[in-house]
């Protein structure tokens, strides 16, 4: 047992190196800080929160395919509310603000890369209201 000090020092060093990402996270206050979502008050989502938490990407894919491929531009939620099928103008514009405020918080917390939605869809909350009135309505004959 003459090497006791050496062995324990080595063990301590090993544990310290293996667990250093944890200490690092705690020191930087990133591990302990969960996402803080600011939700629009008095509004309910298009589907129950549990479902959205687990399957929001599947939900968005259903919306996408319905709108683009089957001309489904209206969606009736489980509670009877009607929504326009639109990522930018309904999801972000009506409730969730912006990609940074909503999507990115959880995606970066759990280190899941943001899907390619935003390469094309616009992250422009706040500007929608002014632009919506810009179109001059000329009804179909």
């Amino acid at each position, binding site marked *: 047992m003459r090497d006791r000090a050496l062995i324990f020092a080595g063990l301590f060093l090993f544990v310290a190196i293996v667990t250093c990402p944890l200490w690092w996270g705690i020191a930087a206050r990133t591990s302990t800080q969960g996402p803080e979502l600011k939700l629009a008050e008095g509004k309910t989502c298009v589907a129950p929160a549990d479902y959205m938490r687990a399957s929001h990407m599947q*939900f968005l894919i259903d919306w996408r395919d319905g709108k683009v491929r089957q001309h489904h*531009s209206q969606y009736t939620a489980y509670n009877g509310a009607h929504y326009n099928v639109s990522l930018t103008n309904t999801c972000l514009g009506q409730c969730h603000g912006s990609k940074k405020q909503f999507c990115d918080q959880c995606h970066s917390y759990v280190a899941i890369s943001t899907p*390619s939605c935003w390469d094309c869809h616009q992250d422009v909350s706040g500007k929608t209201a002014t632009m919506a009135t810009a179109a001059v309505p000329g009804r179909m004959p």
Partner: protein
Amino acid sequence: MKITRMNFLRVLGGAVLAAGAGKFVKGIGDAAQTPSGVPGAKNFATAGGATGGDRAPKRWGMAIDFGKCGKGCNDCMRACRSAHNVPQIPDANHEIKWIWEEPYEKVFPYQRTDYERQDLVGRPLLVLCNHCADPPCTRVCPTQATWKRDDGIVMMDYHRCIGCRYCVAGCPYGSRSFNWVDPRPYIETMNPQFPTRTKGVVEKCNFCEERLADGLLPACVEACSQKALVFGDLNDENSAVRQALKSRYAMQRTPELGTGPSVFYLT
């Protein structure tokens, strides 16, 4: 091993029980996993009756009046660019075209005569996707990213487009453009109501299907101050476009290809 009658019955009984148990467990699992709030097909509806239901299918079409168009304005093209976030890329190799101008000789290459009508030679004519009755572009698409809707619009699904450019090669009218570069820096005014495209997908005119769903005319038709663009349902005898075609001489671009363009040119 010799199978006795008793062993055979035992195995059979066990198998029936196992199969039944599997279904039973799956049934419980399904019931637990699909609460009433989970969305399904019942939740979706179509606005503007685009699918038509039991009504006769539409065929959206356009007629461009030679005489009224070509006054040197570009209202239609500007309206289209701002409605659909179409970029203006200076490099001609990377150009994105939804509605643009080509000289008469290129639009109607087989209509030429030995002694040409002088006011037509070199005259810029408006061209856009013809939304063909039998579109070659949709046939060659390997991913069904482009297809013909039942209202006649040749639609693009940018989500499915893999950028193979078969459709660009298949279109005889050059109506499709490929995004060689990220188009966002080249968009003049961003319309948040409509998405942009991304590098690596093909795009083209969509006959303003998003406006038609809201009961609006296409942006180019609405913007034309000369009323040179007539739009309507080609299957409806009383539509504006059919009325125009009844009384005027009209041409389609290279109809001998059998594509059946839905865009007509009134001379």
